[in-house]
């Protein structure tokens, strides 16, 4: 059961962070819109597997939830500062 929760958190939470990073870079980078979006795409692709690994590297499931939520919150805050309105 705990493995199931962890797997779901790692995969779905990891995808959420990748998506959020794509949005954040699209709004916060200094280049043209198309370039910012492209940079966001590449960063998201790198982050997803990395976040899945993080989800399995931390010892307690609670820590995974905190880490994923924390990273997503920081990214969302940066995106909001960059002008993103969800």
């Amino acid at each position: 059961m705990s493995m199931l929760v962890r797997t779901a958190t790692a995969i779905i939470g990891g995808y959420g962070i990748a998506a959020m990073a794509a949005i954040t870079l699209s709004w916060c980078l200094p280049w043209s819109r198309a370039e910012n979006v492209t940079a966001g795409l590449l960063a998201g692709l790198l982050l997803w597997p990395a976040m899945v690994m993080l989800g399995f590297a931390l010892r307690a499931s609670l820590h995974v939830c905190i880490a994923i939520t924390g990273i997503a919150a920081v990214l969302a805050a940066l995106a909001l500062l960059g002008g993103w309105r969800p």
Partner: protein
Amino acid sequence: MRPGFRAAMTWLHDWTGILTGWVLLAIVLSGTLSVFRSEINVWMRPELAGRTADPVRATIAAIDWLHDHAPRSPAWYLTAANPRAPFTWAVWQQPDGPFVQHALDPASGAPDTIRDTLGGEFFYRFHFELQIPYPFGRLVAAVAAMALVLALVTGIVAHRRFFADFFTFRPHKGQRSWLDAHNLLGVTVLPFHLVIAFSGAVTLASLLLPWGILSAYRGAPAQFQDALSPAMAARPATGTPGTLAPMEPILHEAARRFGPDGIGQIYVYNPGDAAATLIAIGGNGRHVGFDSHVLRFDGTTGRILADYREHRPMISTFATLYGLHVARFAPPLTRWLYFVCGLLLAAVIASGLRLRTLRRRRQGKSTEAVERLNAGMIAGIPVAFAGYFLANRLLPATLPDRAGHEVQAVFTLWGLMLVLAAALPSATGWRVLSVLAMLALGGVAGFSAPWLNGIDQGAAIVAILLAAGFGYAASRRPAPGGRAR
């Protein structure tokens, strides 16, 4: 590294591999064949043997033919003839809706001198669409590519003696030998595996992670495509009929501006409209990046509307990663390296799947069902893919929807192999399917006769080597207790 971390990564590696191994195997094998997409295109059209084509002349012939036979199609998409492919590949829409794709004769521009086949395009499309409707097939492929990245990185962590295993292979030791093989194949070509997996995800990135595009372009993602390739943006049709300008000066101007890159593709939008647009895309075989020099012409006057080359650093980075995957730049030797590395990746995946069942069997768990499916996939896919080549030669040239039947042959055979593998005990199933794969591949080598040109010789050599591999596999007798010796 604390042991808990390695154990967690090993667990992740195993499960990622098991859940995506079969679909990855199909993707990797079709991708490996796509390396020689052009060569397969020619192999599957023996009536083109010995012909050469001038790209400009062939394109003019193709446009003339389409002008007479498909004037109402909203667009004609042409891939120009080149030294690797002496024909024009055309895609157009029929008045009643469906798209047609066919090779057009370089001299007459007509499709009827060349047999109806998808050739290497089948493997290329299957590689990232898996014959599943858009966008689901591509999403499956994109997730599989990400899973492969994850499996590779966690595999590095799980692997204890990374460098020592470069030199380690202990044959005839059952599970130990399979693990050695899995490690050896995985480690030696690891940089290729990592690059091909990540760059594969890059080719489908905008589908997998559309959120940046949707938010920055406020729900109008088409604008992102236009911004990526500014010269490609087509004009909307006006509804007023128009006449296409003479093609010869346009194409000569395009060929002159592209220089040694040559003409890659020609797209004609709204050919019968006053706002007809012709997009000429330069070849991208002379640099790693996938980006091309693009020209946009006014289709009715022949005037140049745009001339664009990519220079933006971030877009070029993306194009370079994309280009590393599709390998348009690759000269023959590099192409063979891609091909061999692709086969090795398939072997890594297959040995990983095999390893899993061996380990579980040693733990006393039942693995028979998985092992049967393993046989149906690992030996079944090669049978089905070889069957595609055989169908190309066996189906009558005038059969209606011939190309569709060739594709059907692949999936019918694949289904039959899975049924056969499911019905037989796994040890027998492995042997029967390996023999079938050997025979099918032998057939491909035979149909490559008379082996006069490089393509036929290459196809025959690859088919014979793979057939020998399956023959060897079929000749091995599993040790008592079901463990391979």
